[in-house]
C-alpha cells in the first residue's frame, strides 16, 4: 500500500492520504466507500437510462417496430429493476448519507466501518448478478415479479434477477443498520436529537424502513425462486398457492421502498432551502416528526397497489383511508419548505434551482397520488400511464432532482473543487423542462386509457401525439443528465479549488476542510448551537458563483 508523500504545503485529505487500487477496495473510510458507491450507482443510472431511451424510442410510433415484443418487455423490466434496486434505493443514502452523516453528527466514521465496506461489496455482487442477467438475455417479469407469470410462465433469467435483488437487499439492510446505530451512539457531545440536521433525521427514518422492510422482500424473492425451481406451490393457484399473497408480500416492502427513495431527498432539500434562504427551517419539530410519520404510516398502505387485484371491499376502504393519512405529513413538508423562504435572503445557485424543481414536481407527484388513493378513480387509472407518470414525478422529479441538488451542494466538500455554476444552472433547467415534457403527457395518456407496458398501440393511434412529446422530452432529459456527469469529472481536474464553506452554510460538515481529512475532525467537536443557525453564520466569503 503506497502512502502518499505529503508535499510541503499540501494538506492531507481522505483523497490523497493513500493511493492505489488497494487503498480504495480495502478502505473502511466512509467517505471513500461513498465514492465507491457513487461509481456503482452512476454506472447503473446510465444503464437504466439507456433502457428508458430505447423504451421511449419504441413508443415513438404506434406499431411495435423498433424491437421485438419480448425485447420491449425485457427493456421495461430491466429499466425498473436497475433503477429501483441499483440506483434509486442506494443513491442518496449510500453516497451522500454515507459521506455526510458521520461528519454532520461530529463522528470520525460510521459505527461499523467494516460492515459499511461489506455493504458495498454486497451491492457490487448484486450488481454483477444483475449484469449477468442482462448480458445473458435479460428478464421480462416486470420489475414487480408478479406471480404466477414469474414462477411458471417465463423462461428468462428470473432466478438470477431475483438473486441480484436479494443480495443488493442485504446491502441496503446493513446500511440501514449502520445508520441507525451511528445516529444513536456516535453523536458528538452537545449534538442532541433536536439539534440534528433534518438530513440526518431523514436518513434515520429511511434506515428504519430499510431494516424492517427489506427482509420481507428478501424472503418473498426466495419463495419465488423456490416455486420456480421446486414447484412448491406458494403463489401459483395451479399448485395450490395464492397469487395475491405474492402481491401483499411484495408491496409490503415495495411501497415503503418508495419512502426509502424519497425521504433522503426530503432531507437534502431541507438543507438546501435553509442554506440559500439563509434561514432556520420553518417548523423543525414538525419536519422531523413528519419524516418519522411518513416512515411509520408508510408501512400501512401497501394494498393501495391492489385495489383492482381482487382484494375485499373493506380491505380496499382501509387502505384507501390510510393512504390519505400518509399524505398529510407530506403536505406539511411542502408547506414548511415554502414558509422557510418567507423573509429569507434568497439566492439562486444550482442546488437551490434543483430544490425549487423538487418542491414543484413533488407537489404534482403527491397530488396525483391522491387521485390514485381515491378508490373510484383508481379503478380507471391504475395500471395505465397515469400511474407511470405519478411515480416518475415522485422518483425522478422528486428523488433524482434532490439527488442532483445534493450532489451540487456537497460536491465542493466531496471533491474539493467547484463545479462550473453556469453549466450547473443550465443542466438544472434542462432537467426540469425535459422531465415535465416527458412525464406530463403521460398523465393525459393514462386518463385516456393507455395501459402501461404496451409495446404496440397501433389499435389506438390517438395516443401517438402525446407519446411523441414524451419521447422528445426524454431526449432533453438525457442531455440534462449527461451534462453534470461531464462537468463533475471536468471539475475534478480543472475546477476552482473549493473553500471550506463555499455557501456560508450551517452544519458541522462545513466546518471541516474541503475535502475533509480521513478522520473528519482533528479534535472532537462540541456542539453548542441549534441546527440551521444562520443568524450566527457570518458571510465571510461571497457565496461561490
Amino acid at each position: 500500500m503506497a502512502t502518499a508523500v505529503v508535499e510541503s504545503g499540501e494538506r492531507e485529505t481522505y483523497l490523497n492520504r493513500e493511493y492505489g487500487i488497494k487503498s480504495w477496495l480495502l478502505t473502511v473510510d466512509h467517505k471513500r466507500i461513498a465514492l465507491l458507491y457513487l461509481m456503482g450507482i452512476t454506472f447503473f443510472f446510465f444503464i437504466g437510462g439507456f433502457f428508458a431511451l430505447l423504451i421511449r424510442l419504441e413508443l415513438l410510433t404506434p406499431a411495435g417496430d423498433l424491437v421485438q415484443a419480448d425485447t420491449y418487455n425485457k427493456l421495461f423490466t430491466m429499466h425498473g429493476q436497475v433503477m429501483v434496486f441499483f440506483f434509486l434505493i442506494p443513491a442518496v443514502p449510500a453516497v451522500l448519507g454515507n459521506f455526510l452523516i458521520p461528519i454532520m453528527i461530529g463522528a470520525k466514521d460510521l459505527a461499523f466501518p467494516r460492515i459499511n465496506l461489506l455493504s458495498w461489496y454486497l451491492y457490487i455482487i448484486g450488481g454483477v448478478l444483475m449484469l449477468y442477467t442482462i448480458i445473458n438475455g435479460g428478464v421480462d417479469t416486470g420489475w414487480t415479479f408478479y406471480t404466477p407469470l414469474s414462477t411458471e410462465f417465463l423462461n428468462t433469467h428470473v432466478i438470477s434477477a431475483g438473486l441480484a435483488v436479494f443480495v443488493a437487499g442485504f446491502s441496503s439492510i446493513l446500511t440501514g443498520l449502520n445508520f441507525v446505530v451511528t445516529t444513536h451512539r456516535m453523536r458528538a457531545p452537545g449534538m442532541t436529537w433536536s439539534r440534528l440536521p433534518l438530513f440526518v433525521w431523514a436518513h434515520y427514518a429511511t434506515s428504519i424502513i430499510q431494516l424492517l422492510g427489506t427482509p420481507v422482500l428478501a424472503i418473498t424473492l426466495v419463495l419465488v425462486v423456490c416455486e420456480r425451481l421446486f414447484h412448491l406451490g406458494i403463489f401459483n393457484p395451479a399448485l395450490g398457492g395464492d397469487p395475491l399473497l405474492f402481491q401483499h408480500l411484495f408491496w409490503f416492502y415495495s411501497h415503503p421502498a418508495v419512502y426509502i427513495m424519497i425521504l433522503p431527498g426530503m432531507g437534502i432539500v431541507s438543507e438546501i432551502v435553509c442554506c440559500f434562504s439563509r434561514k432556520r427551517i420553518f417548523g423543525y419539530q414538525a419536519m422531523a416528526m413528519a419524516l418519522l410519520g411518513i416512515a411509520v404510516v408508510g408501512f400501512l398502505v401497501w394494498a393501495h397497489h391492489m385495489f383492482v387485484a381482487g382484494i375485499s371491499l373493506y380491505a380496499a376502504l382501509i387502505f384507501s383511508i390510510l393512504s390519505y393519512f400518509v399524505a398529510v405529513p407530506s403536505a406539511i413538508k411542502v408547506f414548511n419548505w415554502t414558509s422557510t423562504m418567507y423573509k429569507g435572503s434568497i439566492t439562486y445557485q444550482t442546488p437551490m434551482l434543483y430544490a425549487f424543481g423538487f418542491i414543484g414536481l413533488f407537489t404534482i407527484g403527491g397530488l396525483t397520488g391522491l387521485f390514485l388513493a381515491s378508490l373510484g378513480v383508481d379503478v380507471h387509472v391504475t395500471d395505465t400511464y397515469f400511474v407511470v407518470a405519478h411515480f416518475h414525478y415522485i422518483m425522478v422529479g422528486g428523488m433524482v432532482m434532490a439527488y442532483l441538488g445534493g450532489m451540487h451542494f456537497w460536491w465542493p466538500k466531496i471533491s474539493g473543487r467547484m463545479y462550473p455554476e453556469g453549466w450547473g444552472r443550465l443542466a438544472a433547467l434542462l432537467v426540469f423542462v425535459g422531465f415535465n415534457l416527458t412525464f406530463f403527457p403521460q398523465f393525459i395518456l393514462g386518463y385516456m386509457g393507455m395501459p402501461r407496458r404496451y409495446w404496440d398501440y397501433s389499435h389506438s393511434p390517438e395516443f401517438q401525439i402525446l407519446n411523441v412529446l414524451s419521447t422528445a422530452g426524454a431526449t432533453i432529459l438525457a442531455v440534462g443528465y449527461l451534462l453534470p456527469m461531464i462537468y463533475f469529472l471536468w471539475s475534478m481536474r480543472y475546477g476552482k479549488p473549493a473553500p471550506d464553506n463555499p455557501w456560508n452554510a450551517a452544519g458541522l460538515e462545513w466546518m471541516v476542510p474541503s475535502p475533509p481529512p480521513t478522520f473528519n475532525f482533528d479534535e472532537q467537536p462540541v456542539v453548542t448551537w441549534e441546527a440551521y443557525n444562520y443568524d450566527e453564520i457570518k458571510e465571510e466569503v461571497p457565496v461561490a458563483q
Partner: protein
Amino acid sequence: MANNVDALYIFLLVVSALMTVSIFTMVLFFAVRYRKRPGQRAEQIDGSHALEITWSIIPFCVFMVFFAWGALLYFKERKPPRDSAEVYTVAKQWMWKFEHMEGQREINELHVPIGRDVKMIMTSQDVIHSFYVPAFRIKQDVLPGRYTVAWFRATKPGTYHLFCAEYCGTMHSGMIGSVVVMEPKDYETWMGGGGNQPLAVTGEKLFTELGCATCHRTDTQGRGPTLVGIYGKPVLLEDGRTVVADENYIRESILQPAAKIVSGFKPIMPTFQGQISDEQLNALVAYVKSLSQQPSGQTGGRNMAAATPQTQ
C-alpha cells in the same frame, strides 16, 4: 358510471390545481420578494404551531372528502346489480373468451345491448390478466384459480376498446379486443334466434354426465347436499362457519370439495381439479345457479334483449 368517475376526477383535478397553483405562486413570490439584497439579512422565524396545525387539519379534511367520494363510487363499481345479465369470461395468454348465458361464444369481441347491466364473471387459465374498458372506466384483474367480477352498463352504441391491463407476458399489448354496444333490436338480431344451447343447459348435461346428479339430488335424500336454491344463500359448514354460496364457493366446491364441507355431510366427493376445463366449470356453475332461479325471475340474465334501455 363513466360520468360519475369523471365528475370525481374533475373535482380532484380542480382542487389539486388550486393547491398546485397556490404553492407555486407562494414559492415564486417568496423567491422574488425575498431575494438577496445588499444590507438586508434574513429574519429568523422558528415556526408556528398554529400554522402547522392549520395546514395539517385543512388538507386532512379535504382528503377525507376525496376518500368518501371515491369509496362511494367504488362500492357502486364493485357491486353488480342483482338482475344483471351474466357473461362468463375466460382469459388466457393472449385472448379473451366470452360466453353468454344464451350460449353464444365470442373471442376478443363482446356484444352487449345498451341499457343492460352486464356482469362479467371472470377467471384466467394461466397468469393474471386485467379486464379494462377505458370508455366504461372499469378495470378488474382476472386471476387464475378463482372468479373475479366486474360490471358495467353501456349507454351509447359503438365499439369500445378492451385492453388487458395487467402485464401478462410476450403479447400483453396484443391481448386486446372490443366491446360492441348495440341497440336492443340489433342485439337481438345478432343473437340470432337461439340456435345456441344456453349455458345452464350445457351445465345440466355435464352435471348428469359427470355423475354429479347421483349424490346431489333435487330432494334432500342424496349423499351430497341438494343444490336447489343455494346460490346467494348462507351455508352452514361442518366446522361451524357460515359462508355465502357465491360463484367462487361453487367453483371451489367442485375443484376442492374437501375445502368447505357442508354441515351434516361427509367429505366423500372426489375432486374435479384438472378433469374439466374452465368453460365446463363455468357451465356447471351457471347450472347450479339456475337451480336457484325464481320461475318468473331474471337471475342469470335470460331474456337480455327484452330489457328496455335506460339512460344513466
